[in-house]
C-alpha cells in the first residue's frame, strides 16, 4: 500500500477539523457537567441545530455565514437557557442519571422535530466565498476553509480556557463547581451562573455546528453519532481539566484521520478502541482526577 504525502497531510488536516469539533463539544460537556452535574446528551442535537439554523438563514433569509456564525450560537444559547430554566433546574437534586435521561428525551424531541421538517437527506451548505479555494504552502495545497476551522476552534478553546482559569468570573465558576452552597453564601448568584454556563456550553456546540456546516453534510441526524464519539472522548480525557479535553479531542481527531489513511475499516471504531485501552491502563482517564 502506498500513501502519498499530500494524501496523508490532507487526511491529517481533516482529522484536525473533526478533532476541533470533538474538542469544542467535549469542552462544553465538561464545563456543563462541572457546574450542573448533568451530562448533556442533547449536545449533539444542539450542534445539529446550529448547523441547520445556519442553513435556514442562508436558504430562507439569505443571511451570510459570518452573521450566522454569531447569530446561531446566540439563538441556540437562548434556547439552552430556556431548557435550563424550565426543565433541567428541576432535577439537580436527583441522581445525575436523570439528567442524562432528560437530555436524551430532549434529543429525541429536537431531532424528531427537525426530521419531520427536513427529512434525513443532506442539506447543502456552501463554503463562504472568502474562504473558498486553497493556498499553496509549498509541500501541499491547504484548503482555506479547513485551516480556518482548525484555527478558530483552537482560538475559541484557548479563550475558554483563559476565561475559566485566569479571570475572576472563571474563579467563581470553579468555586461553584467545588462547593456551590459556599459560593452562594459569599453573595454570588449561583443559579444565574448555572443558567449562563449551560447557555454558554450549548452555544459552543452550536458554534461548532455552524463551522461544520460547509464540511460535514448538514442533516437533522448529524449530531447523533457525533455525540457518542464525544462521550468516548470525554471518557478518554476525563472531565477534570479544560486543556485535557481540548488536547484529547484534537489528538483523537488526528488519530482518526490517520486511521482513515492506513486502515479505513477501523476509522469509525478507533476512538472506541482507544477508550477500551485507556480504561484498561488508566481507568480515571488521561487527565482525570477522580477514580
Amino acid at each position, binding site marked *: 500500500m502506498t500513501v502519498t504525502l499530500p494524501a496523508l497531510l490532507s487526511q491529517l488536516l481533516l482529522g484536525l477539523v473533526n478533532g476541533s469539533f470533538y474538542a469544542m463539544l467535549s469542552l462544553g460537556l465538561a464545563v456543563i457537567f462541572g457546574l450542573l452535574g448533568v451530562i448533556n446528551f442533547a449536545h449533539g442535537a444542539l450542534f445539529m441545530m446550529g448547523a441547520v439554523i445556519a442553513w435556514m438563514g442562508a436558504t430562507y433569509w439569505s443571511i451570510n455565514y459570518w452573521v450566522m456564525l454569531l447569530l446561531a450560537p446566540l439563538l441556540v444559547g437562548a434556547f439552552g437557557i430556556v431548557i435550563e430554566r424550565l426543565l433541567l433546574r428541576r432535577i439537580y437534586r436527583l441522581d445525575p442519571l*436523570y439528567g442524562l*435521561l432528560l437530555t436524551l428525551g430532549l434529543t*429525541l424531541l429536537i431531532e424528531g422535530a427537525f*426530521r419531520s421538517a427536513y427529512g434525513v437527506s443532506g442539506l447543502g451548505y456552501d463554503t463562504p466565498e472568502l474562504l473558498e479555494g486553497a493556498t499553496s504552502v509549498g509541500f501541499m495545497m491547504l484548503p482555506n476553509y479547513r485551516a480556518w476551522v482548525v484555527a478558530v476552534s483552537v482560538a475559541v478553546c484557548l479563550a475558554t480556557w483563559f476565561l475559566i482559569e485566569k479571570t475572576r468570573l472563571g474563579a467563581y465558576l470553579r468555586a461553584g463547581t467545588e462547593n456551590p452552597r459556599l459560593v452562594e453564601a459569599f453573595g454570588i448568584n449561583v443559579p444565574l451562573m448555572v443558567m449562563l454556563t449551560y447557555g454558554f456550553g450549548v452555544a459552543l456546540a452550536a458554534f461548532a455546528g455552524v463551522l461544520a456546516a460547509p464540511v460535514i453534510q448538514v442533516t437533522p441526524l448529524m449530531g447523533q453519532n457525533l455525540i457518542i464519539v464525544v462521550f468516548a472522548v470525554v*471518557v478518554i480525557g476525563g472531565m477534570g481539566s479544560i486543556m485535557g479535553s481540548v488536547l484529547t479531542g484534537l489528538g483523537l481527531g488526528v488519530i482518526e484521520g490517520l486511521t482513515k489513511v492506513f486502515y479505513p475499516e477501523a476509522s469509525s*471504531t478507533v476512538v472506541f478502541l482507544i477508550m477500551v485501552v485507556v480504561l484498561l491502563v488508566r481507568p480515571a482517564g488521561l487527565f482525570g482526577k477522580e477514580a
Partner: protein
Amino acid sequence: MKKLAPVAYGLLLLALLAAPFLGAYPVFVMKLLCFALFAAAFNLLLGYTGLLSFGHAAFFGGSAYAAGYAMKAWGATPEIGLLLGTAVGALLGMGFGLLAIRRQGIYFAMITLALAQMVFFAAVQAPFTGGEDGLQGVPRGRLFGLIDLSNDLTMYYLVVAVVVAAFALIARSVHSPFGQVLKGIKENEPRAVSLGYDTHRFKLLAFVLSAALSGLAGALKTLVLGFATLSDVHWTASGGVILMTLVGGMGTLSGPLVGSAVVVLLENKLGEIGAGIASFTGLAWFNTLGESVTMVTGLIFVICVLAFRRGVMGEAQALATRWMRGGR
C-alpha cells in the same frame, strides 16, 4: 399487596395462554413478550443494582444477529439458536462489564454506550450481517428437530414458555440473597464494601445475567419475526429499553412488563391513536402523529423524568401502600 401479586401473575399467565383464542394477533403478542423480557432483564441492572447501561442494544441486537445467522446459514435448530444468542449476550456482557465497572455513575453509562456503538459499526461492516438490509428470511425451523414452529400458535406457546421461565429466573434472583446484595449495592455501595462484599464481582455477575437474558430476548425476537436488522443494535434500541423500564417503574418486577407493553403499543399504534384523536377532536394535525414516534418518545422521556419517576407500577404500589395504611 404481597398476597395479591401471585393472583395477578396467575391471571396474567392465564390471559397469555388464552390470548390467541380471544382474538389477539399472536405475532404481535410474541413481539411484545420479547420486549417485555428485554426490559425485565434490563431492569435487573437499572432497577435492582442501580447501574444505568446505555448499551443493551448490543446484547439484544448482537444476539439477534448471532442466532439468526446460525439458524439461516448453518441450519441450526431453534433451541441451539436461542442458546447461542444467550451465550453471545453473556460473552458480550462479560466484556462490557469488565470495562465499564471500572468507572461509576455517569461514566458507566457513557462507556457502555460507546462500546455498544462499536458493536453497531461491526454490524454495519461485517460480511455476514447483511449491512443496511440486515439478516432477512431466517427460518423458524423445527424445535429439537421435531416440532414445526412455522405455525404461529406453536411458536406462540414456545415464546410464552421461554419468557415465563426467564421471568421466573429474574424474580427468583431478585428475591435471593444475591438479589439482596445487589439492592444493598444500589442503596449504598461503600457500606456493602465495608460489610465484606466484593461489590465488583456482584455487579459484574448482575451485568452478565442481564446481558445474557437480553441476548435471549434478541434471539427469540429473530426467531419470531425472521429477521435481525441494524435497528436492533442501534443506540435508540438501548434508549427504548430504558424508556420501557422508566415508564413501567424501575425496581419493580412487573414494571418492565407494563412499560414494554405501553412503548411497543405506542410505537406500533401511534398512527391509529393519532387518527382516533383527529376524528375525536377534529384537528387534522393528529393524523400525522404516526410519523412523529421519535418526538412522542422524547416527550414521554421528559415527562417521566420530571413528574413520573416511579413509573406506572411504582405509583400503583405507592398508592396501594397508602390505601392500606388508611384502611387500617
